[in-house]
Each structure stands twice: as structure tokens, then as C-alpha cells.
């Protein structure tokens, strides 16, 4: 497997990727700013959103039990999975029991997290991704690069070429509308014949047992209502106490994600088809997935469980904007991914992620639930240092610096010498190559320091007085 740095280098060398990421994230950033400005008191609303999530995370067990009781009362089956594998196994078993040959899937990051697409393929069950961007990803045989725009790394020009190569009767006109029509033609027939519909949940409503999905394409409704069986996979942190809480979170989610006041489709599903209902699945299964969430609570990552997966942190991240989502290498990219991936995949293989961040704090500034992402990233850096995962050169360099810096007299002597040496290396005010600072001077010059440190000059002046 490639390293983070290799993936980042490849991304930086791809000019099309840069255009694609900038188009979508740039638009999202601008639209979010307008939406937040127009909101009466967005800061107070963020406080409330954070408080709601903190409350449910602190009383997770009680709310989950309440949710289970109400979902069961509405006719759904509730399953509990502590690991990704267990969650996949439960889904596959339900599919097999239903005799399913194909499933229609409505985009869900939890599904990606637990590896559901792969598990379905292994079980020989056909899968139709019904979200437009997920459809693009499926055609291209790739992984999502963003949590709400899985195909954000592709330009519309690339998507057009892909559709022309893969669709049975592709668009002829080069317009977005014609391309969407081509996807609709392709998808409708497949999704309407599916035996099972699989979705995630943006919210689980404890006091009604309902689950909520939001989409802009209506694909969730079309993939979940017609099939005989509806399976929901949801992280246990998706719970909210009641409908008004869900509505508050929805207002924060849509604005933070796309800058819209509301998504085009917001649907609440309470149990399967009831007697007298004209439509709806005969069975509804809800798989509640832990997959490390309980452990995160114990490991100082409680605040991360507030996350509502809006993507604002990545849209506003200078690093994400340069390298896109795939370079991160995990299910979740960007700042939130750099906190989650070490928890999900292990720190050893993802130690780069919390380090590859300037700690500029923009992500925290835009997070609708005020997750202190930089603090959590610092926490991972500390753990990585403690466990000896940081490179030796870094440990050695910082150790020496700190050792000298703790001896002010020696420090004055050493810095005096270093500054004199650097001063001698400079030409016309600048240094263009410097031993041990190649990472800097490969791309930038270093201003030549004065011949003496501030401390030395200051002491001289004081003596003169």
C-alpha cells in the first residue's frame, strides 16, 4: 500500500483534481458563508447542537434502548453489531433470508466504513448505487473522496466521458441536465427491480423509533420504499432524543454541508408497511453499529461522537483543498477523518494524518457541533510520540533543541554560533539552500538572519546605556 506522502504527492501533481476539488469545495464555502450569515444566531444554534449531541452521547445506552423499543413497536427489527464484520454479516444474512439477488443502496458513509459494498460483492449479491455521485464512483470502480460529494474528485468533463463509456444510452448533449437524464435512465430500471433497499441514517429518533435520511435526489425514497425489505445501518451516535432535536440538527447539517436551508428530500421512516398502507417494504431492519464508538468515548474522543458528517471541516481545510480526499487513505477524509481514521484503522498506519495539519483552527471554526478538531489531532500526535511512532530524525532534532533550550546560557552560545553560520551562508539577504532544512529550501528561500541574535544585540545596548 502506498504511503500518505506518496498519495499526497500524486494528488498535488494532478491538476484536474485541483480543479475538481476547488469547484465543489469553493462553492460550498461561499454558500455556507451566506447561509450562516442569514441565520438569526448561528453561534447559539451551534451551542445548542453541541449540547444535544453531548447529552445523547452521555446517555447513549438509555436513548438507544428507547429507540429500540419504539422501533420494534413500529414493526421494525433492531440488530446490534459491535464490529464492522458483524454488521456486514447481519446485513448479508438478512439479504440471503430474503432471497435477494440485488440490492439498491442509498449512499451511506457508515456502509463504507464497515466495508458493506465489498461484503455484498463477496456474498454474490448485486448492488446498485442510487446516489448520483455514488453511481459515478461505482462506474469508475473507485472509493468516495468526500463524505457528502463522493465523486468530488472528478470534473463534470470526466464524468461525461465515463457515462459515455458505460451507460447503455448515454447523453448526447454536453449539459448537466442531459448527463443527469442519462444516469436516471440507467439507474431507474435497475433500482426498481431490487429485492432489498439499504440505507444509512442521518438521525435515529429515540422517542418515535424513526430513522431519517436526507438526499437531494430523492434516490433514498426510490430505493427504500419499493423493495420488499429495507435495511438500515447506522452508527449508534446518530441518535437524537426527539423530532424537534432532529429538526434542529437538520438545520445545522444542511447549512453547514451545502449552504442550503434544507435538503431537497428529508424523509422519516417509521417501521415497515402497516396494514392499510399502499406502499412500503414488508420488513424493516435496523442494524445499530458500534465499530469502535464506545471505545472512542473511553479514549478521550467523546467530542468526536458529536459529528453529524456535514463535511464543512474538509471543505474549509487548506490541506484537503490541496490533496483531495483519496490521499487520506481512510473512509473519512479531511480533519474529521484525521481524527477518526487512527481510531478505526489504528494509529500505526495512519500517524501521518493527525500530523499533516497546520493546526490553523479553521475546521473548528466552521464545525456546526463545535468539535475541537485541532485539540483531538494534538491528542493523536501525543499518543504517536509516546508510542515511538514518530520518525527518529524528528525525535532527535526536537530532543536536542529542547535540551539546549532548557539551558539558557548554552542556548545563547549555540544560537549565536548558528546565526553567525547562517549569516555567512546568505547572499543578498537570502539563503536558498541550507543543510537540514531541505524541506524548506526546496520550495522557498530563508531570509538571512542578522549577524547577532536579539539577545546578544540587546545586551550590548544595555551595557552601553
Amino acid at each position, binding site marked *: 500500500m502506498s504511503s500518505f*506522502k506518496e498519495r*499526497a*504527492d500524486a494528488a*498535488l501533481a494532478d491538476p484536474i483534481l485541483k480543479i475538481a476539488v476547488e469547484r465543489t469545495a469553493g462553492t460550498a464555502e461561499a454558500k455556507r458563508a451566506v447561509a450562516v450569515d442569514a441565520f438569526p444566531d448561528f453561534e447559539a444554534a451551534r451551542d445548542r447542537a453541541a449540547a444535544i449531541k453531548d447529552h445523547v452521547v452521555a446517555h447513549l445506552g438509555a436513548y438507544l434502548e428507547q429507540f429500540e423499543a419504539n422501533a420494534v413497536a413500529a414493526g421494525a427489527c433492531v440488530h446490534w453489531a459491535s464490529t464492522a464484520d458483524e454488521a456486514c454479516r447481519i446485513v448479508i444474512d438478512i439479504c440471503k433470508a430474503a432471497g435477494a439477488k440485488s440490492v439498491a443502496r442509498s449512499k451511506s458513509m457508515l456502509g463504507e466504513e464497515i466495508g458493506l459494498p465489498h461484503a455484498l460483492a463477496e456474498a454474490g449479491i448485486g448492488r446498485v448505487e442510487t446516489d448520483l455521485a455514488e453511481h459515478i464512483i461505482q462506474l469508475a470502480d473507485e472509493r468516495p473522496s468526500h463524505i457528502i460529494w463522493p465523486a468530488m474528485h472528478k470534473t463534470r468533463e470526466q464524468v461525461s466521458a465515463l457515462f459515455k463509456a458505460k451507460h447503455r444510452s448515454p447523453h448526447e448533449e454536453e449539459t448537466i441536465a442531459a448527463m443527469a437524464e442519462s444516469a436516471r435512465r440507467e439507474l431507474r430500471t435497475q433500482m426498481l427491480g431490487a429485492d432489498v433497499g439499504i440505507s444509512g441514517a442521518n438521525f435515529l429518533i429515540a422517542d418515535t423509533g424513526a430513522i431519517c435520511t436526507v438526499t437531494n435526489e430523492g434516490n433514498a425514497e426510490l430505493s427504500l420504499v419499493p423493495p420488499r425489505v429495507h435495511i438500515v445501518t447506522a452508527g449508534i451516535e446518530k441518535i437524537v432524543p426527539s423530532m424537534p432535536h432532529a429538526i434542529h440538527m437538520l438545520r445545522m447539517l444542511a447549512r453547514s454541508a451545502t449552504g442550503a436551508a434544507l435538503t431537497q428530500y428529508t424523509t422519516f421512516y417509521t417501521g415497515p408497511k402497516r396494514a392499510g398502507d399502499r406502499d412500503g417494504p414488508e420488513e424493516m431492519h435496523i442494524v445499530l453499529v458500534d465499530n469502535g464508538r464506545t471505545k472512542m468515548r473511553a479514549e478521550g474522543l467523546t467530542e468526536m461522537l458529536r459529528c453529524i458528517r456535514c463535511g464543512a471541516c474538509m471543505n474549509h481545510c*487548506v*490541506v484537503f483543498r*490541496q490533496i483531495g480526499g483519496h490521499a487520506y487513505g481512510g473512509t473519512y477524509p479531511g480533519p474529521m477523518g484525521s481524527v477518526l481514521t487512527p481510531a478505526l484503522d489504528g494509529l500505526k498506519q495512519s500517524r501521518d494524518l493527525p*500530523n*499533516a*495539519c*497546520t*493546526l*490553523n*483552527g*479553521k475546521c473548528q*471554526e466552521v464545525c456546526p457541533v463545535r468539535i475541537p478538531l485541532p485539540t483531538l489531532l*494534538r491528542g*493523536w*500526535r*501525543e*499518543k*504517536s*510520540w*509516546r508510542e515511538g511512532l*514518530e520518525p527518529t530524525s*524528528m*525525535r532527535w532534532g*526536537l*530532543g536536542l*533543541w*529542547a535540551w539546549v*533550550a*532548557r539551558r*539558557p546560557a548554552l*542556548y545563547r552560545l549555540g*544560537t549565536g554560533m*548558528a*546565526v553567525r553560520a547562517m549569516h555567512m551562508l546568505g547572499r*543578498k*539577504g*537570502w539563503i*536558498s539552500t541550507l543543510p537540514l532544512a*531541505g*524541506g*524548506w529550501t*526546496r*520550495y*522557498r*528561500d*530563508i*531570509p*538571512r*538572519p*542578522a549577524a*547577532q*541574535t*536579539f*539577545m546578544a*544585540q*540587546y545586551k550590548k545596548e544595555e551595557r552601553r546605556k
Partner: protein
Amino acid sequence: MRTRRVALFVTCLVDLMRPRIGFAAIRALEAAGCEVVVPEGQTCCGQPALNSGDRDHAVALAQQTIAALEPYEAVVVPSGSCAGTIRCHYPELFEHDAAWLPRAQAVAGRTFEIMAWLDEVCGWKPEGVRVDAKATYHDSCSGLRELGIKAQPRRLLKNVEGLSFAPLAGEETCCGFGGTFCVKYPAISNAIVGEKADAIDATGADLLLAGDLGCLMNMAGKLNRKGSKVRAYHAIELIAGMGDGPAIGEEG
């Protein structure tokens, strides 16, 4: 007016790379009626260790810095990120240390970024200072988001005669410095600062101003590499009337 006795925490970067900023700080503080002391025991606040996860060294350097600075009624720092380290992160470092927490909190509460100190605490503004140029301003992240440094430098700079302003597109966007980030992930850092340098060039300004030498070295170093004519100063240099001297990377 009562004379305020303040300790100047120079920061290791200013000490080594651009002593003028330290002298400009002293000059501005004295003009604002402060008596300035430069405590002997100071070296580095420990931020590189703190941000790299090296907690033990961060704690050791924080203790040394606290001990050096605690005798003074106020500590002034010509850097938003070092002031932010002392103000915001020292108390976090000693969260579970009953002996050091009150000392860390006391120093944190008395530590100020220099422009916030001059503008908000002293209510001072520069007088009789003139620089005929067009400037653009970059808001360094730690100062902006940890300490709320935004209006203060602009208010002070407004009183520099002859100075006009060109707004910088993305003035609150990180320049890609990030302390050790820029040497750990140089290619990503370069892509970020490359965009920043283009944005600075696009303003048509003569001068780039900011409040943090790390960010300034990053941006000025990139501007110079790409052959830009924009000259970079720490804002306090202009405010103190030292804007006629060599800019970053100029022979003086």
C-alpha cells in the same frame, strides 16, 4: 499615567531570525508608556514540542518560561502563536498538576500579543509615523482564532500616515506554515503557500504585513523564490516607526 512594567517575551524565531522585531516591540511599548524588561531566563515557549506531541519537553520548556515570566505584571509577545501557546495551551498542559496549574494560569492571564496589548490595554496609537506605501495584511491563524487578533493591528496601522490598504483575498486562510508542518510535509505546505503568494501578488500591494514571523518567513520566502517584488514586514515594525528599514530578506 502609571508606568506599566512589562516583560518582553522575544520568541525564539525573532531572537534568531529577525532581532529588529524585538527592538521595534521595545520602541512601540516605550512610546506607549511602558517600561520594558527582557527576562534573562527565556528561550523558546515550547510550541514545536507541544505541536509535535512531545509532551515532556513541552512541559519542561513551559515550566522554564513560566518561571522566567511570572515576576512581571504583564508579558508582551510579538507573535500570536507564541502568545497563544502561553495563554491557551499552558493551562491545558498543567490541567492535572496542582502545583503548576495556578502558576500557568496566572502567567497565561497576564500574557498579551503585542498589538492587542498596545491597542486594547494601553489604548495607544502611533503618532507621527509615516510610510508611503500600499500594504496588504494576512491574519495569522493562532492569533486570529486563539486570541481574536483581527481589528487591533488594523486600528494601529490606520494611524500610520501615508499607508493605504489593499484587501487580501483569503486573508484568514492559513499560509501553510504550521510550525514543523512546513518541514514535515513540505510539498503540501508549498502548494498552500504558493496559492497564498499568488493572492498577495494579485493585491498589487507594495508591502505584506502580518503579526507572526513564522508565517512571514514562509510567505516572504515563497514570494522571493517566485520573483515577486512585494516586501514583507512584521506589522509592529511599521507601527514602531521602523518601516523605513530593510524588509525581510533585504540587506540592512
